[in-house]
């Protein structure tokens, strides 16, 4: 049996006395795109930090590619050795490096030889339509272009999985739609494993093969958009669809 790309088993985590996750379990298969959907402040970003290695679970286990990387309060594999990529909500593009520099830094850190590095940077930027902007600094780009650099920086390193921590939440609706299409296409082309956290059901529907609902620190329902709509497990899940229908207006 092939081990999941990312696996969280009975994970408990929190900050000081505040419990954020209590018994969360989630497995993501290789090449699968899973959206973790939950209310603001519900612990979605905590899950991202656990997987990336910036937080260790107080109890439970985190595994990547079948190998346990953190368990019961101990980090066994530091973030830089997990071969993951992330796009944060604020994108976290390094402002003192050009677009090329942002991508090159990642590949240098991975020890990719110079010739190969340049080729991969050119290809990655071409895929997002930014090969004419490689000498620009992030501050010189539009919001949408910065999003594309961020996703390009994540994919150029050929990671084991990509984590998206609400990177589309600050965009207007047309820009968001455009980028969702681009993200979906890029992930399908690269056969990436994706964990995408959001509080937006439409974003979840557009980007996830599967949606996991995080409520009260654990996964309360996990399935396709249609399955969730068909049989919502909790009032919170029902409310998500009611809100969506209300926004769309009467049929």
């Amino acid at each position, binding site marked *: 049996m092939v081990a999941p790309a990312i696996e969280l088993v009975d994970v408990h985590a929190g900050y000081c006395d505040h419990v954020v996750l209590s018994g969360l379990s989630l497995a993501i298969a290789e090449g699968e795109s899973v959206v973790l959907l939950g209310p603001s402040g519900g612990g979605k970003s905590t899950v991202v930090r656990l997987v990336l290695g910036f937080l260790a679970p107080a109890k439970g286990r985190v595994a990547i590619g079948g190998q346990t990387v953190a368990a019961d309060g101990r980090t066994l594999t530091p973030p830089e050795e997990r071969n993951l990529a992330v796009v944060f909500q604020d994108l976290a593009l390094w402002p003192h490096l050009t677009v090329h520099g942002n991508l090159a830094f990642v590949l240098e850190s991975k020890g990719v030889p110079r010739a190969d590095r340049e080729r991969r940077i050119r290809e990655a930027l071409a895929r997002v339509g930014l090969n004419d902007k490689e000498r620009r600094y992030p*501050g010189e780009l539009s919001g949408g272009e910065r999003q594309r650099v961020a996703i390009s920086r994540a994919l150029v390193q050929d990671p084991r999985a990509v984590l998206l921590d609400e990177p589309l939440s600050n965009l207007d609706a047309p820009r968001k739609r455009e980028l969702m299409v681009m993200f979906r296409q890029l992930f399908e082309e690269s056969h990436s494993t994706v964990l995408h956290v959001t509080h937006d059901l439409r974003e979840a529907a557009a980007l996830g093969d599967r949606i996991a609902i995080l409520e009260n620190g654990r996964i309360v329902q996990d399935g396709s958009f249609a399955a969730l709509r068909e049989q919502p497990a909790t009032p919170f899940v029902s409310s998500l669809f009611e809100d969506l229908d209300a926004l769309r207006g009467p049929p």
Partner: protein
Amino acid sequence: MVEAMGRALSTSVRRHESLLILAGAAILLLATAVLPLVRLVTEIPDAIDGFALFRSGRAWRLLGRSILLSGATTMLALCIGVPLGLIVGRMDVPGRRALWLIHAFPMFLPPFLIALGWFHLLGQNGFLGSEESASVLFSAAGLVTILGLTFAPVVTSLVALGVRGIDVSLEEAARLVAGPGHVAFRILLPAVWPALALATTVVFTLTFSELGVPMFLRVEVFPAAVFARLGGVDYAPGEALALVLALLPMAVLLFLLERKFVSRRSFEVVGVRGTATTPLSLGRWRTPLAAAAWAVALASAAPIVVLFLRAGISSNGPFAFVDWVAGAPFNSLLAAVTAATLLALSGFVIGHGVARGSRFAAVLDALAVLAFVTPAAVLGVGLIGVWNRPQTGFVYGTAAILVVGYCARYALVAIRVVASAVSQMPVDLERAAAASGAGSGRRLLRIVLPLNARSVGFAWLLGMIFCLRDLETAVLFYPPGGEPLTVRIFTLEANGPEPVVAGLGVLHVGITAVVLVLGSAFIARCTRW
């Protein structure tokens, strides 16, 4: 097999890279600041005879008097600095930048130079002097006034930086319903209380350690008593040790107060946030308050102008001091540049750790606080105890001992400047680098350092200025023939020709100004991201 062991070792080093980098900075701090304090504690049994001093009650009176004088100076500095900080930080007074600059400059000079300027202005033979003005100058009141004016810019600058960093919406919400005075005192001032707590600690600490001004004005204080027993006519090292040990509890008390009231809150004070909006209009109060603020600023600068005038009135011309200067400026610059560079490097590593919540770095920060609030005489005696031995003559007998002393006393300055800047940098920038495979060293050098180059440069500049103006640490152990400029001026002050001493003072002012201008220009060239 060997290859596998090599790989395992490399992985282990990589995983502990951040700890190893911090350990390097820790060694510097431990060797310079902690060893002397430990040494003092171990010498308590040897100081039993010296404690006899305290039976007479004179030592207690001296201690009480020093605490009272430091308290009074701190109060005066707060009374001047708080309103002035609000004015230069957020009010619409004309030329407030120039006002701030003129008022703040004396803060970068050794206080005894300012006292020297006042002496040439108000001393018996001063430009505006009389017997009465001289008697006020050479008194406790004169000491408090001079030090209060000298250290007021610390308060002014911290309050001004604090109010400029306040979220604009807080102020704008208040301005809809209240006048500028009400907004300043009810909204802005309470929001900058960490700045006030920091300023109070810094001014009290600097005043208590001050040696040059009390000795010049012949006001008896505790550090002067220690100094006299180490190198003067009252030579009695055992008694000096006893006096110094009596100050240790005070250092611990100041340390505990800093932990409770300042600590991490100081990051909010010396931040790099730029939120300047339209200044608050003072309305009909604008003219009188502007006049008062400018009067204080000019009073701060007056002693420097007087020093220039006094240096110029010499029968041998304005450059008579050149024959007396020897290698002192070079000694000062060499020690200050070396120490500032070490301070900036260690401050960068420890400050980053503190900002990112490392417990090890927090312990190092606490030790740096302890070294800073410990009176200079205490630290100096500890340093002599550690380094004055045949095996370490290469340090104690050379300029290296000055570097050690400066690094011990001013480590905190660089740590807090960097910690403040890094804590305002989004942590996701470092997380993104870590997730991309960059180890701690690479992240520090390629991400954190370039993004905080200005702050590291500022930490270097501030460290440099603190080292250049230092007298009270260096005077206890400067190497023979290697005295810094402050010590040179201080030793000539008692018996040297007045124009020469004034000329040396002007030389010090010039060096400080050049360092500040060049340093600021260099920092300004670092791109702000």
